[in-house]
């Protein structure tokens, strides 16, 4: 004795609309046969096909039928509901039909695109249509819930993407929290010397944006900080941020550097991250000259005072502004924002994982990022390319695709390395006049001005050898190879195995997702691709959205890309975030659960199961009650209710059972 959700006197009059989607569906599914099949299903009043159901004429056809044939239920068999459900719901609404009297059958993504045999595809499509038809018959009219949104935005990660997004939003008048875990904002771009293909100075174009961030009234910038906890939902996120101590009173420090000079350590002690380990800094240090905030910090693990508790503390004496504060503790901030932009960037592939290239074994094997610092005037060698053995290279080999396009490590193309390698070749040549070889699998220079740059570097006399390098070895078989690093490679253009002796090897290592990307992914409840990049909602149509509404992606954290690409994406993410918070409210899918107190026995089974604590027990009436505002519509309580008192809108027992009957109806 199951109650039907179809209200009395509401005899379903169903219209079924099957889409060809050009050839996308029609090439595998016999759309006409599906139409005929649907026509004979119970309650179906009309069944039509059309080339593109989502086009205006297609939608008008549906609306006309709703009006003329008094249809009160609509089924569209086309693509995925994740793509066009909103479209067709609007169509229904425009014709005066409650948009939730609509059901979609996904016969493209889940039928025509994945099925080889046309007969099988047609049968499967028909089954899905049957399911939609029997399901929609017991749909009810529902209203979307509107919730006001918080106008502030958080940007996580302050590389070029995060900085750009933050500035756009701030300039649009939004309050922005910019969270960066390094001591300075700027990200990898700050480490680069020049940018391809224009060869303009990276710092020169980045630092103005960095100081703009620092001075912007709408931007709260937290460095040395990480997101700890995220709760809430689109429009109303509550985010806890952990701010690690800098042991310096930021507002007092003017980065004069006297504290650094007087530190009891005369020499650097800690490998310098900014210089990719090519130099060392003292326990108290300035990350790099243009660091923002312009403020020193203390590394608690290396500082004698903080690690051992005893030190002459010369720095304290030296600082007349009394900015040093060994007592600083971790601060936990909690803020509310309407939207979040994640722009956490990437890390470089560890070249030690390709031992055949001898990084870490042979002194003169470098990564490309290290060379960026070598050629940089502010770098450890003041811009001179001096190798670890003190020599300047006369011959240099740049190996492409280290860690990328390699099934042992990352299958993907890291996309920027070819151009970066070309730039490196140019710079090294410029600095040393050395003969430079590039060892590549394929050259990939597709964007504006890139191919031209490739051509320019060719003209400059840089050598290109097509072939994946087998190994780098110091095994010399000819006198010419003595004391050199020998690059063994098959030159696939001339079909010869070559041994090319060089002084310096530069590895174009891949961009890869941060080792701890998965933690962030879970904290924000978004998805990761297999390679660890954050997953966009749709590869083409929602490239900066995620599956969690209100959380957007910018820059390399979504996949390898260069600076122009990152900046463009940051702009897109900012626009999406702006659209959300400016609108003032979010509409929430009416799929929340409710409990029928006529049936509920107050057994409380559902209470502990709700992940959002939306269910409370009313001790007076001995029933459990769902707070609709807190319910996010997972349906766990419904599945756990032993007496069928809990039900979920859009996913009632009856609706799902009808769908089960439907999908099995085709035989």
């Amino acid at each position, binding site marked *: *004795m*199951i*109650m039907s959700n179809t209200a009395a006197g509401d005899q379903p009059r169903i219209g079924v609309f099957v889409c060809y989607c050009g050839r996308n569906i029609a090439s595998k599914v016999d759309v006409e046969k599906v139409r005929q099949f649907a026509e004979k299903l119970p309650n179906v009043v009309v069944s039509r096909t059309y080339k593109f159901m989502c086009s205006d004429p297609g939608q008008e056809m549906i609306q006309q039928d709703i009006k003329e044939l008094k249809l009160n239920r609509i089924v569209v068999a086309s693509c995925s509901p994740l793509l066009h459900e909103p479209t067709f719901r609007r169509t229904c609404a425009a014709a005066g039909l409650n948009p939730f009297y609509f059901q979609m059958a996904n016969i493209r993504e889940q039928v025509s695109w994945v099925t080889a045999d046309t007969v099988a595809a047609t049968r499967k499509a028909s089954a899905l249509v049957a399911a939609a038809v029997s399901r929609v018959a017991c749909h009810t009219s529902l209203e979307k819930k509107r919730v006001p949104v918080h106008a502030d935005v958080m940007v996580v990660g302050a590389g070029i993407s995060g900085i750009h997004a933050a500035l756009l939003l701030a300039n649009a008048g939004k309050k922005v929290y910019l969270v960066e875990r390094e001591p300075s904002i700027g990200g990898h771009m700050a480490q680069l010397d020049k940018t391809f293909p224009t060869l303009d100075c990276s710092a020169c174009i980045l630092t103005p944006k960095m100081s703009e961030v620092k001075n912007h009234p709408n931007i709260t910038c937290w460095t040395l900080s990480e997101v700890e906890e995220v709760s809430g939902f689109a429009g109303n996120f509550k985010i806890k941020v952990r701010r690690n101590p800098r042991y310096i009173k930021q507002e007092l420090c003017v980065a004069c550097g006297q504290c650094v000079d007087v530190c009891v350590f005369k020499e650097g002690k800690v490998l310098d991250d900014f210089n990719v380990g090519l130099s060392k800094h003292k326990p108290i240090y300035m990350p790099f000259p243009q660091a923002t905030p312009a403020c020193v910090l203390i590394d608690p693990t290396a500082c004698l005072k903080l690690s051992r508790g005893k030190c002459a503390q010369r720095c304290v004496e030296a600082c007349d502004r009394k900015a040093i504060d060994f007592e600083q503790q971790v601060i936990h901030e909690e803020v509310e924002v309407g939207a979040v932009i994640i722009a956490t960037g990437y890390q470089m592939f560890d070249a030690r994982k390709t031992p055949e290239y001898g990084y870490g074994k042979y002194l003169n094997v470098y990564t490309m990022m290290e060379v960026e610092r070598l050629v940089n005037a502010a770098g450890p060698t003041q811009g001179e390319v001096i190798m670890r053995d003190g020599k300047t290279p006369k011959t240099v080999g740049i190996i492409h695709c280290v860690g990328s396009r390699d099934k042992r490590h990352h299958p993907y193309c890291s996309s920027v390395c070819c151009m970066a390698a070309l730039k490196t070749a140019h710079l090294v040549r410029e600095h040393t006049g050395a003969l430079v070889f590039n060892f590549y699998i394929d050259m990939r220079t597709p964007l504006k001005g890139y191919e031209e740059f490739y051509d320019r570097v060719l003209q400059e006399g840089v050598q290109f050898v097509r072939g994946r390098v087998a190994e780098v070895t110091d095994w010399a078989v000819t006198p010419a190879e003595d004391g050199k690093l020998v690059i063994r490679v098959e030159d696939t253009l001339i079909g010869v195995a070559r041994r090319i002796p060089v002084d310096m090897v530069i590895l174009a290592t891949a961009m890869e997702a941060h080792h701890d990307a998965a933690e962030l992914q879970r904290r924000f409840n978004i998805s990761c691709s297999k390679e660890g990049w954050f997953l966009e909602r749709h590869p083409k149509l929602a490239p900066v959205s995620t599956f969690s509404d209100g959380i957007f992606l910018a820059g390399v954290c979504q996949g390898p890309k260069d600076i122009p690409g990152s900046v463009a994406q940051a702009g897109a993410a900012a626009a999406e975030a702006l659209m959300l918070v400016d609108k003032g409210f979010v509409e929430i899918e009416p799929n929340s659960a409710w409990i029928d107190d*006529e*049936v*509920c*026995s*107050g*057994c*409380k*089974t559902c*209470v*502990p*199961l709700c992940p959002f604590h939306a269910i*409370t*027990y009313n*001790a007076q009436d*001995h029933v459990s009650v769902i707070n609709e505002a807190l319910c996010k519509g997972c349906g*766990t309580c419904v*599945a*756990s*209710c*032993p*007496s*069928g*008192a809990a039900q979920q809108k859009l996913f009632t*027992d009856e609706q799902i*059972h009808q769908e089960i009957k439907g999908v099995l109806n085709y035989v």
Partner: protein
Amino acid sequence: MSKPKAGFYWCASCGGCEESVVDLAEDLLPVVDAIDFVFFPLAMDFKRQDVEALADGEITVCFINGAIRSSEQLGMAELLRRKSKILIAYGSCAHQGGIPGLANLYDLESILETAFQQTPSTDNPGKTRPLPQITVAGGKLTLPTLDESVKSLDQVVEVDYYLPGCPPPVALLKAAVQAILSGNLPPRGTVLAPDKALCKECPRLDSKPDELLITQFKRPHEIEIDQQKCLLAQGLLCLGPATRSGCQAACIAGNMPCTGCLGPTSRTRDQGAAAMGALGSLIESTEEDQIASALENLPDPAGTFFRYSVPTSMMFRKHQNA
């Protein structure tokens, strides 16, 4: 004027249901005055022929208890259906198959094998089995045949009302009888018991924590059972949440967990499955092995969650691979 006629019959069951009629005690007397019993093997000497002699629909109301397994039970059910205006499935066995319904977890042959050959107390070297018929001096003797599966009453004849319970609670029987005599009956097919789960009338409901999770299912003999505290909260597997009320939580009053005899509420398709969904969800663990060990003390889910309802469950019986 003639009194309404009533009949009682007893199929595959223990007989407790008919005993329960006597539990009406003095309330039985007005009933006896008000109706004529035309068939009541437990209490009166009527024979099948007496029923056959009646006109179709002559019996006003007939209470059949017990599940249907044998040809005789089927025959009687059909006969009484024909002769009765109102047919009531009386008790868990008629309602859902009940304890006899557990036989659907085995195939017929293995049951006969056990009954007539395997049990320790059986001495049957000749492997003798009852025969459907045998000719002896003086004529042919027949025995009813057994069907492969046990069925609930409404799986063989149409049933007008259900009066659940093992045995049905007196209060429910009384209410039913009054409804029948007064003639104001609910829609056909109604289960004549409250449509809320047992927790509603359980005296221990308030002692149930709002956020109850289960780390280990316990069995009654393993712990000293607190007389006041919710049994689920003590780790005992109580089916109260998935079972109709109407019994005033008699078993719980006896400090024993509910085993589900009054069947599911009208919103649930499958009592055992609903109970598994509910209690399974409450296991407090995210690790597969911990979940498994929490379930160790549930060696027999079918017998535990479907004690009275195997034939009316969605599986109906153990799957017999073709």
